[in-house]
């Protein structure tokens, strides 16, 4: 960066624009070789092009498809039929879409809250138990995490099966005889609860490990200090552990929102959005329109709207990210 050899007559204006806040380092860089200044961007370029090509382009494609009529016929003939915002107005005018959106939001919030709470409790537990038990917990968590989604879903389906499920049999043995032949998939709420259980079961390990990593980063002295001050267990957690956990907790919460909002496999595998469409979430609706119905236009419109919801939901987090970046640079 600070080499003095081979200074070229390159005008200063060629330096990449930077915010006024980073003026100081810029002055130092001005003396650098042009190659040194360009090199970072050259090195970044393949990754950037990769990201844009693989992620940006599909999004643009999606936007275009959402403005077209794209059924089987158009797919085969390759005709471009532009319909403007027709797909959007059709989707938005459908009252079912709003019911499903509300259901998806509530479902997502419930699953994320449950995941975070259980994950946090497991993380705290791991910190307090002796190493042997901790390793046992960690192995169990990794195993749960490693089970393929559909395999786990199938296992849960059998657990909750009306006739042959172990849950109903166990409840019956425990004296709750009403559960003989009880259908856990009889209503949308009950079905979504079971689906939520599957998702939480699979999501907890990642959250627990992330939070546990945050917990072990807290210096022992702080706990000792809290102890000397006579803090109770909960007070210690609130004053010492939580501040250290907060950034990680925020991050994994928002990651969970992103994941749980668009979870499809478990929902579809359990009851295909049934009974009577009562467990249909937005990703299932998208599948029904796009893949099952071969109406790719409206499906793309739903996907764009989902993207919009996600941006709105995570806007606060993005804002935090941008702020913290500025803070660091300052």
């Amino acid at each position: 960066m600070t080499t003095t050899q081979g200074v070229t007559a390159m005008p200063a204006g060629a330096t990449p624009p930077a915010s006024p806040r980073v003026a100081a380092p810029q002055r130092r860089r001005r003396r650098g070789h042009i190659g040194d200044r360009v090199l970072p961007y050259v090195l970044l370029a393949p990754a950037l092009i990769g990201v844009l090509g693989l992620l940006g382009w599909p999004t643009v494609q999606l936007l275009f498809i959402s403005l077209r009529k794209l059924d089987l016929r158009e797919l085969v003939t390759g005709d471009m039929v532009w319909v403007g915002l027709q797909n959007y107005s059709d989707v938005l005018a459908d009252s079912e879409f709003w019911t499903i959106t509300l259901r998806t939001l509530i479902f997502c919030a419930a699953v994320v809250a449950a995941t975070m709470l259980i994950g946090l409790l497991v993380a705290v537990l791991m910190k307090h138990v002796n190493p042997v038990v901790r390793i046992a917990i960690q192995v169990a968590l990794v195993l749960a995490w490693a089970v393929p989604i559909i395999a786990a879903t199938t296992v849960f389906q059998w657990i909750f099966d009306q006739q042959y499920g172990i849950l109903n049999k166990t409840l019956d043995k425990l004296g709750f005889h009403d559960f003989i032949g009880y259908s856990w998939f009889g209503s949308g709420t009950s079905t979504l609860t079971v689906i939520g259980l599957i998702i939480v079961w699979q999501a907890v390990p990642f959250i627990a490990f992330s939070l546990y990593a945050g917990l072990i980063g807290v210096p022992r002295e702080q706990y000792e200090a809290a102890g000397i001050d006579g803090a109770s267990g909960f007070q210690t957690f609130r004053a010492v552990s939580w501040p250290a956990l907060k950034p990680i907790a925020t991050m994994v919460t928002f990651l969970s929102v992103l994941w749980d909002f668009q979870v499809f496999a478990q929902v579809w595998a359990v009851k295909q959005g049934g009974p009577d469409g009562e467990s249909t979430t937005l990703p299932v609706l998208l599948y029904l329109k796009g893949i099952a119905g071969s109406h790719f236009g409206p499906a793309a419109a739903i996907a764009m709207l989902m993207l919009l919801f996600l941006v709105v939901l995570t806007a606060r987090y993005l804002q935090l990210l941008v702020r913290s970046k500025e803070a660091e640079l300052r």
Partner: protein
Amino acid sequence: MKRWIKLAAGVAAITLATAGCAGSSGSGNTQASSNAPAAQGGDITVWLMTGSAPDSLTTALNKEFEDKHPGTKVKYEVQQWNGIQQKLTTALGSQNPPDVFEIGNTQTPQFAAQGVLADLTSSVNDMNGSQWLKGLKDSGTFDGKQYGVPFYAANREVLYRKDMFEQAGITAPPTSNDEWLAAIDKLKAKFGSDPDFQALYLPGQYWYTLLSFIWDQGGDIAKGDGAKFTGTLDTPQAKAGLEFYKKLVDQSGTKAPKDNDESNPAQAGIYGAGKVAMFIGTPGEVATAAKTDPSLKDKTGAFAIPGKTAGKSAPVFLGGSNLAIPVNSKKQDLAKEYLKLLSSAKYQGEIAKGGFVPGTSTDISALDSDPYASVMAKASQNGRAVPSSPKWGDVEAGQNPLKDMLTAYLTGKKTVDQATADANAALNKLLG
């Protein structure tokens, strides 16, 4: 530094979320360009479904075709039913679709209406057209033109344990709804002490069976033609069919799930366990059950699904397949030649030997020797199809309102009026 990682993770997650959405709906478009390498020379690609044509048939057929057309090779590929609709959508959108493919009869109108199948109207006579099975022919017709050639059909019948009927003192298989219910009572009286015994295994979402009852009462699912169909599930006839379904479920005390269909769990496996006296299925399912208990093959008999009038069996849903040529196949003429050969009496006889009702030949003598197949073949004459709406595919591929209606009514969640009204509205939304 931590914050940077956080930022990177956040951005990556958002972009991944975006790409995830794009992937699921844009796939049809992007996959179109990347497909199997181009067929060379005069080769034709033929896609048939698993379990439809016996290997002996296809081997002989492909050999004869290759001999007749020197230099031509038949690339024969067997496809799985699971996910076939998506696979066909992708394949037909590609540059190199199969030249001949099998398509389920209920899916045919959708593909025909989208204009992706070649018009075969002028070739019907070359393909034994006078003997086509009517139910299948109708499913391959759209807007007065023929797009699908009947391949084979199968329909359901009641498969029963002859030994149990004898022990329960039932001398002849029931031929009317009342006799059927009486038989159930007799079976229950004889075997009811065994808690695992089921006089009839009837899952709640077995909508093909419901179709028989609705048709038998003189009703239908939807009426109309061309592109416009209106649901008729709220008619008294349809309600009567639904009510009889519930009567069967209640009276037989079947332990089958009310919120699932005949394949989840597979009913042949349940019958194979030996505690079920009757189930409604295709002849092929006896063979599946016999894998569990080989003695079932001899103990099982068949009778046509009884109707409300004694001696007159109920109409049956004709399940089966058509054959079609994609409109963008580059080997249209060869593909037609292939269909001509397949529709000849020789190969149709092979289909009958395989236990199916052949699509383009009325000669079903090969089925007579088989006790289950002969009953099926006789009932197939009274076979009917689902509404030939181009949007019917949506009904089956998505959330089938008929299944939801059955579950809601059978579990007592909705009354018959409420259930049929809701299902009719859902059907109108899908078909309208």
